[in-house]
């Protein structure tokens, strides 16, 4: 889909080329993550694909066509583009921002409107609420979403993303990453993704291209990169605690079926039955759910000493946080650490209770890998 053939970029006035003799191929539907320390040429490489920077030497092919011979405007209209600073247009409403490319392509108004609604819903912004707002009225996370929606609105086959989740707090970032992966599973775009964060690279990438000083050091799948780093630099980059990093590669739902946990207690379950369940449980507590199978709380052994009611719902303590089943094991771990508990409740896409993961489960996964 995208092929860089011996590409070199030398900025005027610089002695050393920013990118040197780079060969890279990205397959259709893959997410290729360019990763490396700052100044390694990863952003420059990405920006040559839509010709924000023109390569000094070498060829770039997109779907087999020579990109350097195409009209740059047309080329860019078919490539989604998200940059770190997002670059929303502050004087336009969210709806106008998202409709930028359709307006450039002169789509009919109703088609644009429909697509804008669709994209905003896809990234989790209710069009009814946010359409007419200005970017200044949005939080950092919401702006990132608008940036992604704006890049995808015309359904470009290729997307370029330069640290698109860089400017938000870690929790929001993890959520945006998960949402993005869920969307990507459905739309299967070819994506070139730039980041300096190796954890993000391992999580997001189908393949990872490690760069240093303008050269491509290794291009491999995350698994291969972790198990067989090409040299000391890559090994250093992925770090020593590689088994922990593997937690990034595994999604919760992949192991959820294997962990056999006590069933949750419905909120109207009588107390004696609840006690029995707690005794059988390996975390000495049991999750309580309401009628819609949504998370209501948790009862531990100690909670039962307060005698204030008859059924499970009267005793349960609120749970401060949960994870979705498409989050990675690493996300689960950080939520556990944040809560200071040895477990975390898992919910599915519809917010229904799906299971519980404990620290022990994570240990088992890490052990199996080694």
């Amino acid at each position, binding site marked *: 889909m995208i092929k860089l053939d011996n590409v070199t970029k030398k900025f005027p006035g610089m002695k050393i080329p920013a990118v040197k003799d780079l060969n890279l191929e990205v397959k259709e539907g893959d997410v290729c993550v360019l990763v490396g320390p700052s100044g390694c040429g990863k952003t420059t490489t990405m920006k040559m694909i839509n010709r*924000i920077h023109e390569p000094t030497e070498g060829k770039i092919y997109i779907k087999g066509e020579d990109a350097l011979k195409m009209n740059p*405007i047309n080329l860019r209209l078919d490539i989604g583009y998200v940059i770190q600073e997002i670059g929303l*247009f502050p*004087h336009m409403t969210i709806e106008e921002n998202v409709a*930028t490319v359709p307006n450039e392509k002169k789509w009919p108004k109703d088609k644009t409107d429909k697509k804008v609604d669709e994209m905003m819903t896809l990234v989790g912004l209710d069009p009814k609420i946010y359409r007419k707002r*200005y970017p200044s009225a949005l939080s950092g996370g919401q702006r990132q979403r608008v940036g992604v929606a704006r890049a995808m609105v015309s359904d470009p086959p290729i997307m*370029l993303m330069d640290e698109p989740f860089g400017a938000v707090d870690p929790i929001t970032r993890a959520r945006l990453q998960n949402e993005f992966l869920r969307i990507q599973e459905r739309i299967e775009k070819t994506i070139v993704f730039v980041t300096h964060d190796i954890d993000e690279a391992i999580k997001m990438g189908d393949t990872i291209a490690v760069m240093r000083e303008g050269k491509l050091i290794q291009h491999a799948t995350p698994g291969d990169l972790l198990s067989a780093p090409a040299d000391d630099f890559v090994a250093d980059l992925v770090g020593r605690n590689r088994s922990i990093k593997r937690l990034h590669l595994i999604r919760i739902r992949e192991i959820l079926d294997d962990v056999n946990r006590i069933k949750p207690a419905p909120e109207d379950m009588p107390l004696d039955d609840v006690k029995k369940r707690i005794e059988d449980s390996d975390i000495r507590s049991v999750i309580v759910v309401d009628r819609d199978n949504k998370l209501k709380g948790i009862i531990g052994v100690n909670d039962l000493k307060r005698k204030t009611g008859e059924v499970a719902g009267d005793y349960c303590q609120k749970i401060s946080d949960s994870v979705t089943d498409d989050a990675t094991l690493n996300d689960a771990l950080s939520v556990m650490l944040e809560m200071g508990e040895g477990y975390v409740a898992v919910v599915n896409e519809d917010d229904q209770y799906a299971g519980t993961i404990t620290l022990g489960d994570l240990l088992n996964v890490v052990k199996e890998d080694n």
Partner: protein
Amino acid sequence: MLQNLYKLVLVPLFLVIVGVVIVIYTVNNPTDGLVARMLTYDNVIRALREHLMLMLVSMIGAITVGVLVGIMLSRPSLYYLGRGVENVVNVGQTIPSLAILALFFTWLGLGFRVAVFALFLYSILPILRNTFAGITSVDDSIIESAKGMGLNQFRILTRIELPLAFPIIIAGIRTAIVINVGAATLATFIGGGGFGDLIVTGLSVRRDMVIVTGAGLAALTAIILDYVIGQIEIRVVKWT
């Protein structure tokens, strides 16, 4: 809605009425025969007409040229020239308006046209400077994302840069107008007419009423124009 009506119509209307009341009062209650001869409706209206014409012609010219040159200088290829021009403009702005008029008088002679030309040159400066500053202050990331999405240079200018620079350009125009109204009162020295006629003749015959009328009307004109443009700006710029 009611508030809009109040701000956009009633406030300027009130200021106009104040001006009319001043004129009616002074024309009907002259302190002596000399004042009565100077302050006739004919004279006041002629001064107003000349004053407005001086401003209008010079401002239209200044806005057109100032904005266009400002845009040109903000293009990447001329950017460094722009920085230099900005400095020249800042120095030019420190020359007193009277000196500018005097300079043009020695060069081009007397008359309305010479006055307009001098005012035009003097008013270009803040507009040009603000247009250049407004466009070049647009965040690079905004320009880059627009470029990356496939907008060409012209579209980036019209859809992104000019709208974002608009408040700053308007601020420049407001500054220019206030300067222009003041400087236009000096046009009388080179035969340009306007409220300056009233002020200067009032001064030479020592009649305070004539001076105050001329000066008051000039000030009111500046206040009204500045106010109206400010209101237009608030209505156009909704995004801050």
